[in-house]
């Protein structure tokens, strides 16, 4: 029973952690690409990394936090342009391969020993080096705040200030996505997803719309990168290919092309992992599965869950099967 309680507390903690919020934000961005426009972006982690590096390096360089934030967004726009120009006129899988490759290039360059002075190489940048200005913005005061099962510092890293701002950003972005997707602009995007040629026949510039969607989702990805590193540290390898796959898993679990799907998906993603790990730790004897292995077992379950969700419930928890034909051309 004790262990069950531990698992429950771990799940509750992960449900509100800034990391979960960051995954949700990245999934919201990917939702604009994949869910609404039908773009196969396999480089969302690359956008996160670009945003994270631009933000952290700008702050270390002495720029004010607002400027650093803007630089991160501009960097994501440029990255989207570089990715989009050669590929958006081609078939979907080309975008997939190019985005995947580009994200890996960003990671490899970031962790390269040549750039150790700027990016910290494979060790990355510790949070203390860039966290200061953001912590200073806090109006939560010092001390600890207890709220139901959650008990954190008010301002310290991983404290309420980081949690509140992260989820505030999630809420803002949900509102934003809800608003733009019911606008005429959003309807054009859905039209592109369903039938590109039909939209083109209506006189819309499909290439331009796709590019706008790629940029918008990428910028949201960069914000996710910043939210992800603020309470932790910046390490290139933590935002590699697996991160992109996890964002996809979260998005598809929750439901692509829905407003709250990415958020719910991110929470369920971490909860599922912790639940499986906790249950395996409790019921499977240590001789069969040790602590390390329960963690890996949880990831195996995540992989299989992704397969099963895509096969049997492609619309996810919240999605509408009719809306989502899901096949990128």
């Amino acid at each position: 029973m004790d262990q069950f309680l531990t698992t429950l507390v771990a799940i509750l903690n992960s449900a509100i952690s800034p990391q979960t919020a960051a995954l949700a934000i990245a999934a919201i961005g990917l939702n604009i690409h994949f869910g609404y426009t039908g773009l196969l972006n396999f480089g969302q982690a690359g956008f996160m990394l670009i945003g994270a590096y631009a933000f952290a390096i700008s702050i270390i360089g002495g720029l004010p936090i607002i400027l650093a934030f803007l630089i991160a967004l501009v960097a994501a726009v440029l990255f989207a342009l570089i990715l989009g120009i050669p590929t958006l006129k081609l078939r979907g899988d080309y975008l997939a391969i190019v985005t995947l490759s580009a994200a890996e290039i960003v990671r490899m360059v970031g962790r390269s020993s040549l750039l150790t002075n700027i990016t910290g190489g494979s060790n990355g940048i510790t949070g203390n080096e860039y966290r200061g200005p953001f912590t200073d913005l806090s109006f939560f005061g010092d001390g600890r705040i207890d709220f139901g099962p959650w008990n954190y510092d008010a301002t310290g890293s991983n404290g309420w200030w980081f949690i509140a701002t992260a989820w505030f950003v999630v809420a803002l972005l949900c509102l934003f996505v809800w608003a733009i997707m019911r606008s005429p602009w959003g309807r054009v995007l859905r039209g592109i997803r369903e039938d590109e040629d039909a939209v083109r026949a209506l006189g819309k510039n499909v290439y331009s719309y796709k590019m706008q969607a790629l940029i918008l989702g990428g910028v949201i990805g960069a914000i996710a990168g910043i939210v992800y590193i603020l309470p932790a540290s910046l390490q290139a390898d933590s935002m590699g290919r697996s991160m992109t796959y996890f964002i996809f898993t979260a998005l598809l679990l929750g439901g692509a092309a829905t407003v709250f799907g990415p958020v719910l998906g991110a929470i369920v993603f971490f909860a599922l992992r912790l639940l499986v790990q906790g249950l395996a730790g409790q019921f499977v004897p240590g001789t069969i599965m040790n602590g390390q292995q329960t963690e890996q077992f949880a990831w195996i379950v995540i992989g299989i869950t992704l397969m099963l969700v895509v096969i049997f419930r492609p619309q996810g928890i919240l999605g509408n099967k009719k809306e989502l034909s899901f096949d990128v051309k």
Partner: protein
Amino acid sequence: MTTLTVPKRPEGRVRVWRLAAMITMAITAVLLLVGLGTTPAFATTTPPPTAAAACATSDTTGCLQGTIKLPSGDPAVGIKLEIKGGDLDTVATTGSDGKWSQAITVAGPYTINLDTSSIPDGAVLDSAAKNPATVNGALKKNVGFVFKIVGGTTADDGTTTQTPTTDVSTGVSFERFLQQLVSGIRLGLLLALAAVGLSLIFGTTGLSNFAHGEQVTLGGLLAYLFANVLGLNLILAAVISVAICAATGYFQDAAIWKPLRRRGLGTTQLMIVTIGLSIALQYAFQYFLGASTVRIDMANPVTVQLGPVALSQQSLVSMAIAIVVIALVGFVLVKTRIGRATRAVSDNPSLAAASGIDVDRIIRLVWTSATALAGLSGVLLGLVLNGVNWQTGLQLLLLMFAAITLGGLGTAFGALAGAMIIGLVVELTNLVLPGDFKYATALVILILVLLVRPQGIFGRRERIG
């Protein structure tokens, strides 16, 4: 995938499997032949009597080991290494073969301090080498560490002067160019083995298989299991591994992909299913092996000098096997009925079905041979790179995609050409840029090629839609 019902031709089915059996036998024969020629290379597991006491791993012991060579390439005899850590404080000495080893019974960090006074005159420890060095010893494992000795002199006060050599890290000398060129061809060949299958699967089913890298890893890990853990002969282990990999392809198609095609799942959905499979397999590998790198062949690699180029014997054998198998695949695709049928399905599945080709059967064969080839590539990679871990294939997957996109998505010969180009680019990049960038350059080239010629080298315009 529309599949028209075509009257079954039982003799055709037999022919396919006879052919598959032929290919498997041919691979076996090649492996055996090459293996016989080089048996000594694989059989040097027992060290010569004069060598330092051999260390064998067991459940309670592990080994620290290494080989030290003089600048001339001869083994450095009598080098003393102080080893401290765990419950040990001892001195290991290199034997007549330049090897040293030390058994440990406690896992953890060990400091190895090379006694520089034991180095013969005319040679010094490479100034870049860490001395003392710290290695993480583990039970049940051999942990290697390399001290590099270069030409140079030691003054009376103990300061050393290295004989200047061309800057090894970035200098472009002709010898180095040749060496990297050969490494590039080696990587290209092994990459081609894996990429041809990926390309054929894409061509016949439209599926980008993100789990193909794990098929490569599987081959390497199975070879480790059979050759190292179960102690089978290396050739036999390789054959069994490839056969098991082929079986995984067969049953994968039967259990997962064919039913999904029947359900009419879109290719995007299928692609994401392969991502799920890839995640599950990666962690399954880690579940059983952890994050450690395991070696298939425990013997220290024997290098062969070909003019200015030094290659391990394993590399030479692997390249030979790869060339023969690739030639075989090419022959089958071009000259046999089944190869023509495969290419027909690649071109247009519906038309192929209408002209009497059993598309599902061809796809099953493609899956089987693709995973077998990936497995073989994994075994050879494990030998060439001197180890396999859970992400060996993962790291290769992007290069495979780059190769088949370069060559033209879905064309088998494009995949070969693309793989050779990518292999060369990756290794030659090392001449001018540090190792961190070698994969990055290949991917940059991929993006540039897409800008100029999106259909790739052998692709046709209409494929890119």
